[in-house]
């Protein structure tokens, strides 16, 4: 098992995707958060409450949570590239117990997801505090709470990366798997929120669970107001965290069990 994890780390570090992923974390964390803080949520279209209010601050943190499709896509890309470039057969020749290979990948990508989440949350915190200090804005929440919320977002990224790995291992076709992952996380859930009745499910979908981590209801509220449906009630943060972990476990389990007996041709 240690051999397999070592091999997966070597595989990950050998591609350019790894540095690209860390760069994306810094750009989305520091860059996007900095830009949002500089512009100020009150100047968004449509305008949102300012950073000096709790709602405004939670909103821009919540928007950061919406970038979770990026690590998810990276996980999918990494795992499906073995099938796309036909190295899966070589890998299973070296390690015929296929579940161990997938387990090693999950362990490796959990660490990669953690690095991604740390950089994302760290650069976002730095950008947010720097802009607030420079512009003399007092943030709508105490710094400790802001950091805790960012840490939750960072950890959610680990979960999303693992969900991406799971979907990739299940579907194997790179293009199809990427379309499913990005399509669902980036657009699918938002669309689901618009369908009356189905939007009641939103709190228990991965997006709703992530939103509950920062209690980010602004988007959902705005949407239900627009559509005249009842407001979405998110889960408490702890329940949201548990649910997200359950999603990651389910994705991992599927990823480990499914490839066992499939023919590699």
């Amino acid at each position: 098992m240690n051999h397999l994890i070592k091999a997966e780390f070597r595989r990950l570090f050998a591609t350019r995707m790894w540095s690209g992923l860390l760069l994306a974390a810094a750009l989305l964390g520091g860059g996007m958060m900095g830009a949002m803080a500089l512009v100020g949520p009150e100047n968004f279209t449509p305008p949102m409450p300012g950073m000096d209010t709790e709602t405004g601050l939670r909103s821009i943190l919540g928007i950061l949570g919406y970038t979770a499709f990026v690590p998810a896509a990276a996980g999918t890309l990494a795992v499906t590239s073995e099938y796309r470039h036909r190295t899966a057969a070589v890998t299973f020749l070296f390690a015929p117990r296929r579940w161990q290979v997938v387990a090693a990948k999950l362990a490796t990508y959990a660490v990669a997801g953690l690095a991604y989440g740390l950089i994302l949350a760290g650069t976002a915190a730095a950008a947010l505090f720097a802009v607030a200090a420079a512009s003399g804005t007092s943030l709508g929440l105490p710094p400790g709470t802001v950091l805790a919320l960012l840490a939750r977002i960072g950890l959610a990224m680990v979960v999303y990366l693992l969900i991406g790995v799971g979907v990739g291992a299940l579907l194997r076709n790179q293009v199809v798997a990427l379309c499913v992952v990005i399509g669902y996380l980036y657009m699918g859930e938002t669309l689901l929120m618009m369908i009356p009745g189905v939007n009641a499910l939103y709190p228990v979908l991965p997006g709703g669970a992530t939103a509950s981590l920062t209690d980010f209801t602004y988007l959902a509220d705005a949407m239900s107001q627009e559509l005249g449906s009842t407001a979405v009630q998110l889960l408490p943060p702890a329940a949201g965290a548990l649910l997200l972990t359950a999603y990651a476990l389910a994705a991992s389990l599927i990823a480990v069990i499914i490839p066992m007996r499939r023919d590699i041709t």
Partner: protein
Amino acid sequence: MNGDRLKIEVSNLTKRYGALTAVRDLTFTVEPGVVTGFLGPNGAGKTTTMRMLTGLVSPTSGTATIAGRPYGRLPRPSRTVGAVLDANACHPGHTARDHLRVYAAMGGYPDSRVTDLLDLLGLTEAADRRTRGFSTGMRQRLNLATALLGDPRVLLLDEPSNGLDPEGMRWLRSFLRRLADEGRTVLISSHVLSEIQQLVDDVVVIRRGELVAAGPWSRLAGPPAVLVSSPDADRLAAALRVSRPAPRVEAVEGGRLRVRGLDAPDVADLAAAHRLRVHELVTENTSLEELFLHLTTGKAAAP
């Protein structure tokens, strides 16, 4: 495992994909110490059989074992078996060294092994280039290097001549010969027979998923024939027919004779004894191609 002589045994192996039977009740043995050619037209089931041998495809019924065990039950499979089933298997963003280092880690082999194999396969100069720019031949060699990481006693190569230039082919021939001479088990599949003709000792021939012939190539091919051109062909034929043991003589176009059952010196001596002229004397080995066509077109297929 060093010095071990390991057998590959396939027995009653069958693989069905829905209504299609890719491999049907296949039974054969591959011996150590020789190079065995696994032959058959495209789509005969060679690749499916090799993938069942290595556990990548599960058989519908029957067994395929290496050293008495199914692939998945070998303690450290890459130490026992090296297989190249897809010569293009490499991530385009990885360098040759990266690729080998991943699998060296997976099999638990030291990095020095990576350097050695890059060297052995002539990839040292290309080692730090991304495989995106590699030719088919270079990818072929990279995959062969991967298979050799564990210094395996059994080598399985699926269509190794694809993408190799004549020089690469010559190198591969001598390399596989050396491995076989060390008592290793070598099984190579091919549909391009002329390229592996000089290489194989034993052959296993399949057609439409079924065994057609198996055994030492020399036995399947029969004794060589001698082709004689002589202006005195009629008298030579008569003289040959009365000699003991009597060879089989047939007239072929251009006034030549094909003689089976005598070798070239015998034919020459006999002609000299009868004071008959010989203009040309050629020993004619049955080519694998002919044998193969003969076997797979069904004429001699029934045992």
